[in-house]
């Protein structure tokens, strides 16, 4: 499943700047994300997390700098090896859970009827919606839709997952299930990049990047960030960096 070119570096972002008109969403940002880990992008609203993820899937093109995912410039050629979960649910609300997951399995080159059906079932069971598989998405609760959206992103077993706030609206029990599943995937060599606001997610990641105003203001393992700042919680560590950044800027 994981090919040799992704053994070391899954994502390489080099001095990337991106603007929407006058708004600078990313500011000379560089990141190197090794394969096979869970990487957390943390930061307040408007920090540039979604913009960064859209650059990685090729929906946006960097104005300056370069981006490489799985050793290639993002394009349709690598797209089927990426599982992308947008921040909004992005589902066909008239279709059933199963029809949604199956559609995204098909367009991501999961071929062969029986094999695909097995994989679709497995994924729907993973997000704990098998009993609701024939319901239209419109009849599901917000958190359930979030789970369908995640299922659509991971159904084709891609070696790289880009998940934009995947745990929003999930109940605590399911959060735990998801993180257990992510850890399993990491063991199989899958790289997972997750954006989030919650420090609960952050604690599950192997590596974190704190983002603010389109820049990475600190990065490291959760333990490292806590001890380096002398704080007891990740929240405090983040606030520490935000404040010290403000001090430096002033």
């Amino acid at each position: 499943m994981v090919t040799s070119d992704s053994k070391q570096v899954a994502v390489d972002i080099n001095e990337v700047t991106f603007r929407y008109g006058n708004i600078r969403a990313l500011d000379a940002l560089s990141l190197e994300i090794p394969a096979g880990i869970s990487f957390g992008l943390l930061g307040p609203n408007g920090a540039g997390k979604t913009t960064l993820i859209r650059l990685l899937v090729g929906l946006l093109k960097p104005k300056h700098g370069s981006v490489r995912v799985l050793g290639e410039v993002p394009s349709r050629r690598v797209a089927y090896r990426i599982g992308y979960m947008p921040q909004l649910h992005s589902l066909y609300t008239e279709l059933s859970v199963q029809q949604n997951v199956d559609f995204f399995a098909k367009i991501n080159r999961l071929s062969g009827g029986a094999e695909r059906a097995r994989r679709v079932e497995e994924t729907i069971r993973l997000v704990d919606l098998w009993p609701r598989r024939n319901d239209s998405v419109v009849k599901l609760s917000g958190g359930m839709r979030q789970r369908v959206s995640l299922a659509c992103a991971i159904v084709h077993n891609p070696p790289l997952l880009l998940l934009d706030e995947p745990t929003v609206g999930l109940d605590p029990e399911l959060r735990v299930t998801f993180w257990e599943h992510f850890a399993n995937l990491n063991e199989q060599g899958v790289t997972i990049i997750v954006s989030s606001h919650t420090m609960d997610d952050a604690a599950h990641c192997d590596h974190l990047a704190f983002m603010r105003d389109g820049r990475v203001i600190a990065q490291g393992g959760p333990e490292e960030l806590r001890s380096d700042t002398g704080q007891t919680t990740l929240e405090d560590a983040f606030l520490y960096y935000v404040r010290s950044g403000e001090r430096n800027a002033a």
Partner: protein
Amino acid sequence: MLPRYAFTIAGRVCRQLLRDRRTMALIVVVPIVVMTLIGLSFPEGIVLDRIAPALLATMALFFSFLLTGISFLRERSQGTMERLMASSVSRLDVVLGYLLGFFIFALTQTLIILLFTIYVLDVNYNGDLWQIFVFQIVIIAGAVNLGIFISTFARNEFQMVQFIPLILFPQVFLCGVIWPVEQMPEYLQWIGRFLPLKYGVDGLRDIMLSGMSLIDVWFELLVLVGFTVATSVLATLTLRRGVGG
């Protein structure tokens, strides 16, 4: 670059519409209601006979354009377009998939209108029924593509609604639907030559009123096929891979 996912997308489009019972019912009922009202407003059958080809062409174009345009726009507003564009499917896959998917519904709708007009409203016609239908198929294909193309210029439903009169009214007034083109000023006739509905109306009139065959109306057919090809190319080109800009 081969459109290997077009059928997958077409299948999904069909499933989506079929699961929406109310939309399905409206697709069948609305054209019948509209045609009934028009039929009743022409107490003299002979007048209805004369205007029927123009009506059939206009309805085929308009309903197909609307159905496709709005549905395609929804794909963007509900965020699924973002997912599609981030996947391995090509823009041609998307445009062809939609063309195929909507074509089936537009075709059903057109067939209902045609059969209703002929058998319930009792409109007299010359020419072969199957030739009339084939000619309409060509109109629909162009209209479906036009819907996709125009919807790429609208960011939301409100903007899309503004395009509807812009597409509908000039064609209805300048293409001889209501009064003969020959009675209009020269420059309006000239504009009319660039509108697809003119060829739809002319061709269908030739078949239904004069009893001509598809071969006789080759010129109109050719223009409509050209329009279909042009709009699919344009729709493919304007479909941006990017989002939100």
